[in-house]
């Protein structure tokens, strides 16, 4: 188990810069996520850590050891590939044994560790099967066992769940968390699925266009996005553009729908008059039938355009003054607040309004 440090890593393919100037520190035993849309450079970054690409510039350290130029087979990483990459001409057991054989592990220890690894992923009874006889989820487990059995310094997971169906994905998600907690290995996990990242990660690096846009624990990344890109990529968000009218303890933003108040301290102080966008999560907005509590801040009237029933909640589309549309999540479908066409009031706490500099 090691910490992984990326120092100013860049990678260009021909003309295209896939990763530009990324620096990261991943702690020992951390379950670290790299999250972003396809083409953001996250897989390229992971493959550089595995050694399949050489960075154009920058350094990669495992602990104190500079492994930037080390070929992949000397890095002792355990990688789980998107398509599992199990070798079809070997049985499950042989797949798992391969890494140990290459390490010349004594046979007895091999047997013990293979047994342990297969137990850990609950595949013991499939040891003699060929990968072709396994379902996707089972193949995934074998790939995981193969990566873990060698006691890698760091486990690399490249979109490991993307080829599984929704239910299996949830199951494997719990499984990976459990295995990580049992082993405490450093794991670097690449995905474009925000739910995977939010539910599993110790920390997340949100990536876009080859750059790291924000690093933080899931809660921070979700509730305090540092840029509209991050806010947009993770979860649903309403954006309302405006201008800063007043700064201080709270920021007052003048918008087309009226003044909005944010109590979230900005990363860098705003100057009055600056252009900003206010991000408000749909589930942070409450629907109230009348303008009863007049004293409330961030109270806006709106008309309901459409209501979408989603089982555990309903999603309202509402139109505000100046033709702005917002999405609102109402957690109690059985207590409907209004019908389409009706007027309604929206309110939200200033601590849920994040003012960001537009991109």
């Amino acid at each position, binding site marked *: 188990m090691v910490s992984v440090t990326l120092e100013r890593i860049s990678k260009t*393919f021909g003309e295209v810069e896939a990763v530009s100037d990324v620096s990261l520190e991943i702690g020992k035993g951390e379950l670290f996520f790299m999250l972003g849309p396809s083409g953001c450079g996250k897989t390229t970054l992971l493959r550089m850590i595995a*050694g399949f690409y050489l960075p154009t510039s920058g350094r990669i350290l495992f602990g104190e050891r500079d492994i930037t130029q080390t*070929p992949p*087979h000397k890095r002792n990483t355990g990688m789980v590939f998107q398509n599992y990459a199990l070798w079809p001409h070997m049985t499950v057991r042989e797949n798992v044994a391969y890494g140990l054989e290459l390490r010349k592990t004594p046979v007895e220890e091999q047997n013990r560790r293979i047994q342990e690894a297969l137990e850990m992923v609950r595949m013991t009874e499939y040891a003699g099967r060929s990968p072709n006889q396994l379902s996707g989820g089972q193949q995934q487990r074998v790939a995981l066992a193969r990566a873990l059995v060698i006691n890698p310094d760091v486990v690399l997971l490249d979109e490991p769940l993307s080829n599984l169906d929704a239910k299996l994905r949830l199951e494997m998600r719990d499984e990976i968390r459990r295995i990580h907690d049992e082993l405490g290995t450093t794991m670097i996990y690449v995905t474009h699925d925000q739910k995977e990242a939010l539910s599993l990660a110790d920390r997340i690096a949100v990536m876009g*266009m080859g750059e790291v846009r924000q690093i933080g624990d899931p809660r921070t990344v979700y509730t305090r996005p540092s840029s509209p890109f991050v806010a947009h*990529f993770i979860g649903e968000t309403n954006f309302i553009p405006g201008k800063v009218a007043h700064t201080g303890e709270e920021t007052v933003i003048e918008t087309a729908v009226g003044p909005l108040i944010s109590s979230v301290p900005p990363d860098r102080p705003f100057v009055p008059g600056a252009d900003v966008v206010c991000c408000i999560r749909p589930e942070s907005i409450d629907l109230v039938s009348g303008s009863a509590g007049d004293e409330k801040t961030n109270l806006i009237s709106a008309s309901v355009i459409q209501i979408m029933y989603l089982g555990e909640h309903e999603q309202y589309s509402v139109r505000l003054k100046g033709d702005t549309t917002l999405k609102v999540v109402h957690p109690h479908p059985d207590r409907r607040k209004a019908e389409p066409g009706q007027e309604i009031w929206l309110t939200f706490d200033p601590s849920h309004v994040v003012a960001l500099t537009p991109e």
Partner: protein
Amino acid sequence: MADVRPLPCSGVDARIDTSMPLRYFSSDLTPGLKVLLGFLVLFFGAFLLYPLFYVFANAFYTDGTFSLTFFGLLLQNPVQQRSLLNSLELGIAATIVTTLISLPIAHALVRYDFRGKGILSGLLLIPMVMPPFVGAIGMKQMFARFGSINLLLLEIGIIDTPIDWFGGGGFWGVVILEALHLYPIMYLNIAAGLANVDPSLEESARNMGASGFRLFRTVTFPLMLPGYFAGAIIVFIWAFTDLGTPLIFEFREVVAVQIFNMMSDLHENPMGYALVVFVMIVTLALFYLSKKFIGGRRYEMMGRGHVVSASRPATGVEMAVIYAGLLSIVGIALIPHFSVLLTSVSDRWFMTVLPSEYTTAYYGSIFDHELTARAIKNSLILSGLSTLVDIVLGILIAYLLTRRRFPGKDLLDAVTMLPLALPGLVLAFGYVAGFSGTFLDVRIWPVPLLVISYAVRRLPYMVRSAYAGFQQMSVAMEEASMNMGASPFTTLWRITMPLVIANLVAGAILAFSFAMLEVSDSLILATKEDDYPITKAIYALMGRIADGPYMASAMGMLGMVLLACSLLVTGKVLGKKMGELFKV
């Protein structure tokens, strides 16, 4: 949010799969890679480029000065003039006849579905199993002036004087034999071209009101032209440079035979060089033209396999026509084979319709007789060695082409495939001339150059088979192996090789069996009887009056069975990909 996917391979050769991820050291020339490339440069330099260059140099330079003297002499010499014309005519005639046979076959097989289609398309390939010059031996028995057919016709009284079946001093004999041997290659190429015509294109043409011949002429034909051209070029070059068949028919005024005859006195008579250069220029020009037509579709086998099924069930009448047509083609194409078989089991066959006595003794005697027994052994050894060379080089080259990125990759690809277009005659001539006086001189010890010439000529089959295997295999399998701690070599040995072994076996079998039946290289390079391979022994036997043709036929049958078996195995392994191996 713009979703820009970085293109790892933008700007590099588009014919090689561009979706292939870059690998470790992909952009670097590692020392190991440099050594491998250096080795390949040396090999191809010495055994492909140097001999060709040597021939060119000797054709244009006399005593250190550039001159076109030999070409002038060549064109003034009436024999050479006639030879050139004859060869060109042979090529053209063979191409036309082959086209006429192949077009309907390809059309029937690509556009219609019917019972027994698989078997029928397999049957159509059978004629390939015998080099036409062997078939010529049997054909001479049947169609000669006093061969079976004429005797039969005379007996029945249909004709009074024997018909000259081989017309023009053997010209048509050569053409027919070559066409019957080569039409499978042509039809495989046309079929591939037709299959690549998206049926929706035809449908939209129909939708516009085109139909029947008009549809074929305006839409289908232009679209399948690249495939047709690829096949036509092979056929033309083959017939243009075929040495064995004209020799057996004693149709001596063709370029190939002229060159063959000039081999013995190369030093006194440098005309041979000019003649070879002429052949080379014709073939390369054609090859270049075909490339222009075919464009960048050389690796279609490796490309997208998403062509929608273009076929429809045949009606009863259509099926009857298809069966009658295809079966009679197979029947006619197998006449040479049948006649060789008949010759090989006849004890005496002279001036009678059928052999007067039968025997299987010749099959025994080819293993006893010194010349033939040794030739069989020689062929096995020579072909075996050349196949080993092909396996090593083929795997190496296919691996480099699919898995590594390095400068000169296109060039390596082109050079490896060059022997497909290069007549064996030209290369063999280059070997004899270029290495004369060195330790590789064929007049002293022909074995090394025989092995190398077989290897170079059959390398494309091996490379293509291996290439297809590597291409099908996910690179992630190898990466997973490296990730587990395996070095690149261990990965190749334990992961890559086992997964592509079927392709390697198929390629090796093809390389081996075609080497066994290599004609022009063997005739030219095997200068000493001790080193004669099967084909040269067959040729030598033809000169023996008494039992020559019978023993030659028995040898031919042996080679035929061998090639048939190996093609069957290869077909089983490669399935539909089989046809791709014969494409330019």
